[in-house]
């Protein structure tokens, strides 16, 4: 007996299944490519749960819902609650001041304070901001843990290609860009990432390096693995990372810590983030279909809240604040 069909098993669809189960609704979870993997946009995510840092440019709903994400993810996977450290090269101090003015919940750090947080960086960086309440996770680990927790509750991902039109009963459509034809204004925003390995460098929390041209974030993962990201290009071109983006990301990493020059390149990847014109993730209601889409760069931050509001609607008919038109 199925109460709701969920199409798409990325971070949105997996959370939708989890939230439906929590409300006693039995989901059928379908993805054209099966369980999450390189075909999934969220596979390429950074895994930062950083609502305050994102808040420097994101809309208020991302900040308020994002603040609850770390606790919700904590029930599913390993979440490191070690905050975020934001740095800027000395000549780009103005960037740091501007960021400080636009974000909240941070404290200013001098080189000593930076050294206490990240001993490897104190000697090189003199000024920074520490966002103590933020967290991070390993996105692939988190997706796998979600899949496992659903399997334990009897929900397995069915590999099939279906669209909302040929489904009876309520649908939560989490197909991301594949739903572009049904959602006017949904666009792809290209993002690129590099995974490095270094035994020399020890970082325990995400680091953001501000720069007027080439901003960078570095997210540490287990066993000396670091994920570099930050490109955000208004292009719907898929395909491998460009040499320019690789140069930018790697030289920014080198500026953060020159020992990255000796790191091994484990992986490079690129994908498209689905986004609406205002870059705000949302639930769009269309008849029997709830579109959970436009997660942009906030997939891991916003999927729990979007899923809960979609599931709440199916069980109570009440719409939440994330129900928006596109």
């Amino acid at each position, binding site marked *: 007996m199925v109460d709701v069909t969920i199409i798409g098993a990325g971070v949105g669809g997996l959370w939708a299944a989890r939230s439906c189960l929590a409300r006693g609704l039995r989901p059928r979870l379908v993805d054209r490519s099966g369980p999450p993997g390189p075909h999934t946009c969220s596979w390429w995510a950074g895994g930062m749960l950083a609502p305050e840092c994102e808040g420097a440019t994101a809309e208020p709903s991302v900040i308020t819902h994002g603040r609850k994400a770390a606790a919700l993810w904590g029930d599913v996977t390993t979440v490191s609650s070690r905050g975020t450290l934001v740095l800027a090269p000395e000549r780009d101090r103005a960037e740091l001041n501007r960021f400080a003015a636009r974000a909240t919940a941070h404290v200013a750090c001098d080189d000593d304070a930076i050294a206490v947080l990240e001993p490897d960086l104190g000697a090189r960086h003199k000024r920074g901001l520490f966002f103590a309440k933020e967290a991070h996770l390993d996105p692939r680990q988190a997706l796998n843990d979600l899949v496992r927790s659903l399997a334990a509750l009897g929900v397995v991902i069915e590999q099939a290609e279906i669209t909302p039109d040929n489904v009876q009963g309520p649908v939560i459509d989490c197909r991301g860009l594949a739903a572009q034809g049904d959602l006017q*204004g949904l*666009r792809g925003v290209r993002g690129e990432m590099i995974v490095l390995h270094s035994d020399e460098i020890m970082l325990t929390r995400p680091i953001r390096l501000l720069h007027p041209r080439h901003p960078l974030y570095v997210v540490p993962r287990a066993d000396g693995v670091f994920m570099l990201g930050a490109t955000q290009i208004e*292009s*719907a*071109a*898929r395909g491998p990372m460009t040499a320019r983006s690789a140069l930018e990301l790697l030289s920014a990493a080198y500026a953060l810590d020159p020992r990255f020059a000796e790191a091994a390149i484990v992986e490079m990847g690129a994908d498209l983030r689905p986004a*609406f*014109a*205002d*870059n705000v993730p949302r639930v769009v209601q269309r008849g029997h279909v709830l579109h959970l889409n436009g997660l942009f760069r906030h997939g891991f931050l916003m999927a729990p809240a979007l899923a809960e509001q979609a599931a709440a609607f199916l069980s109570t008919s009440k719409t939440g604040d994330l129900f928006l038109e596109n």
Partner: protein
Amino acid sequence: MRDFYGVDLQTPMMLGTARYPSPAVMENAFRDSGASVATVSLRRERGAGQAFWDMVRGLGVNLLPNTAGCHSAREAITTAQMAREYFQTDWIKLEVIGNSDTLQPDPFGLVKAAEVLCADGFRVFPYTTEDQVLAARLVDAGCRVLMPWGAPIGSGMGLNNIHGLRTLRAAFPDVAMVIDAGLGLPSHAAQAMEMGFDAILLNTAVAEADDPATMARAFALATEAGALAATSGPMGMRDMAVPSTPLIGKAWL
């Protein structure tokens, strides 16, 4: 008012399309400022399924593709040709960058690219310095619009060389000129218009403001104020104070 290759702009404000928090914010900035030209960069925003470019087209303003990030004449020429094909316009904002730190124009590559593009039928808007000799070479190449910088791109410093810009303006009375790059505040825009420039082009000062739409409107108002001042004959500066009411005959207290 001088025209831009036969086009009379509705407002003397041109706005870039990069660095906004979202395309929706960009649309608001265009709406609230009434900007009449949108610059678009082909280099970084290349690719299939151009939802973003559709949004830029949907702004309903003149499109001015640019060759941002090109470091040689050859690169700029190729980018211009791609832009013409893609955006169906022969307008091109020609940027040939000579120094990756200051992003200042490479005058030699700029003239070379301008000659090739003008001969190929492009309507070239060259991003240049305030150098008068360079300007003459660009006009010789066929440019009927010049875009001298105010200050380095994205620096927000305003008009760095007032004397040079004034001299340039006076030297080419028939050439439309746009102050491009380096404006940070609406007062910079007003100053440029007061000096007789025909339009301003900006991006970062609006896109990176806390409230881009309101900042865009502030620039639009300042631009309009400056343009009105330029056409209404500003008074000259004097060394001596001149009272607006005569002192003779006033009570001596």
